[in-house]
């Protein structure tokens, strides 16, 4: 029987979320920025699972399923955009993609 307080699960999710946020803001490599976004999405899913655990309802898991499908769609489009962008900025440095068609 597990009796972890929901607050501790939320604290863990918050720690993971801020690690992902720090990755997005500190790294300049586009691949690592996308990894940080994935970490943040996973932390958000953990919050929904924690809510489902708190109330014993299936709704939290359903929201996690939606987050999962959204993450899959986002990462496929994001990686395709990285592959295109690499030819224009000659590398993966996000700072070199500062201007669009200027």
């Amino acid at each position: 029987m597990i009796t972890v307080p929901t607050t501790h699960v939320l604290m863990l999710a918050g720690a993971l979320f801020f690690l992902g946020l720090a990755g997005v803001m500190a790294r300049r490599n586009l691949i690592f920025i996308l990894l940080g976004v994935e970490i943040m999405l996973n932390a958000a899913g953990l919050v929904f699972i924690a809510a489902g655990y708190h109330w014993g309802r299936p709704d939290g898991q359903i929201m996690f399923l939606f987050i999962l499908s959204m993450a899959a769609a986002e990462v496929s489009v994001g990686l395709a955009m990285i592959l295109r962008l690499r030819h224009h900025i000659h590398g993966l440095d996000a700072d070199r993609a500062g201007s669009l068609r200027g």
Partner: protein
Amino acid sequence: MNTLFYIAGAVAVLCTLRVVTHTNAVHALLYLIVSLLAAALIFFLLGAPFAAALEIIIYAGAIMVLFVFVIMMLNLGTPTDRDQKPCLRPAGWWGPAILASVLLVEVVYVLAAGGGFPAVNAPVGPHTLGRALFGPYALGLELASVLLMAGLVGAYHLARPRGADRAEGGAP
């Protein structure tokens, strides 16, 4: 049983820290996979076994394979013509291996001690989940499928080589 949750949480935070601070993309992916496995174990402990299975199959399986494909296409890993010996030395993989074996010990302990779900009062299984997903949440399910279709079309459209790039001397 509560200790299992805290150990898995510590493993998840440690692995995520290494993902953010690592410079080698493939090693960072390896740490991220261990972090997702730890998250899956936490889901299992919180009474969501179906979400835990999906976390492993879709996140640690499909999405991470997508990342590996792109990293290999971009040649961010070690060059292929280098000697294979450095990859076989434990310096690159001992960290993820130790953390993953901690998770393995936890899973074996849960399955051996609990004789099933360790879980909360009533674990929400796939049956309850499916009834709710195709009942009140049917519209959301349809929207998710449309979103996946849009992602498929968008990824194909973006990754397709274009005439202008070929004329400028870009990659074919």
